[in-house]
């Protein structure tokens, strides 16, 4: 493992922490500005640690929906962590203690950082480095945002909603060099996009692995 590779990894992770940190601060601010006590966004970030689900659950509550609707929405969005867990299982284990902690660090970005690496040792390093850094950055910034309240402006004006898909795109692009994964990913993305208007948020993405069948069928 070359040190230049590691330096690049840490720099990339730091950038994602910065972008996610601003989003986290906005989450804390939105929750508190909507009338929720400070401990709610803070506890959610520590215990749930999944940006999409946190925003959606708080969004449901602030829109007047009940706890059941908020929890259901959040769980649907987080169901994708099961297939992600299967993909990064060997990086999380095998010791019980690292697995208990490692499982909590399975988020879109840590999975993407891990599978973007070629060597197993580098995959493990990428998963843990991005997972731990993101957990720290996310939680610290949620606290800061919750305390700052309304002071945090609209993150859409900063274009940060484009940063998240851009991060994932930059990280998965090397895996799409081979024809079969690329075709499977394209078919999967089309299926998910077609399902967005008709299925509740979180479910469309779960249909995407059907794209694997389309490719295997042909070969």
């Amino acid at each position, binding site marked *: 493992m070359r040190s230049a590779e590691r330096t*690049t990894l840490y720099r990339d992770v730091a*950038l994602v922490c910065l972008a996610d940190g601003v989003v986290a601060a906005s989450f804390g601010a939105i929750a508190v500005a909507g009338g929720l006590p400070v401990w709610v966004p803070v*506890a959610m970030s520590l*215990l*749930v*640690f999944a940006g999409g*689900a946190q925003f959606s*659950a*708080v969004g449901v509550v602030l829109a007047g929906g009940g706890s*059941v609707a*908020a*929890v259901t929405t*959040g*769980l649907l969005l*987080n169901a*994708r*962590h*099961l*297939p*992600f*867990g*299967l*993909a*990064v*299982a060997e990086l*999380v*284990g*095998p010791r019980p203690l690292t*697995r208990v902690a490692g*499982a909590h660090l*399975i988020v*879109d970005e840590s999975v993407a950082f891990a599978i973007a690496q070629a060597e197993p040792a580098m995959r493990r390093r990428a998963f843990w480095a991005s997972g731990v850094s993101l957990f720290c950055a996310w939680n610290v910034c949620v606290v800061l945002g919750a305390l700052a309240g309304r002071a945090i402006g609209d993150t*859409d*004006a*900063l*274009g940060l*909603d*484009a*940063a*998240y*898909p*851009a991060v*994932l*795109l*930059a990280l*998965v*692009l090397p895996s799409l060099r081979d024809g079969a994964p690329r075709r*499977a*990913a394209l078919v*999967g*993305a089309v*299926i*998910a*996009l077609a399902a*967005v208007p008709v299925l509740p*948020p979180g479910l*469309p993405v779960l249909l*995407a*692995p059907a794209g*694997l069948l389309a490719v295997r069928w042909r070969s």
Partner: protein
Amino acid sequence: MTPAAILVLAAGTYAFRVAGPLLRDRIEISAPVQRLMSTGATVLLVALLATAALTRTQGFAGWARPAGVLVAGLLAWRRAPFVVVVVAAAATTALLRLAGVP
């Protein structure tokens, strides 16, 4: 958001996360299946980024965000540094919004 609701959401989310590593302990997985699961994660990430780039709730996200992601895609394809890719995406979207594009 009651404490109970947060705990249920947290427990459910953790169950989804830990299920994969626990399952891998109990069943022997062949190399082709392992590769398939890795490809599955890639497929899932691409679907996630496609829906995040193009949709908001259950409709179209507007042009500013997909335009930013498109710029990022072109730069990443040309092997631009990660920092450049991500900053260009946010900057493109922010500038388009500043110019009044939704």
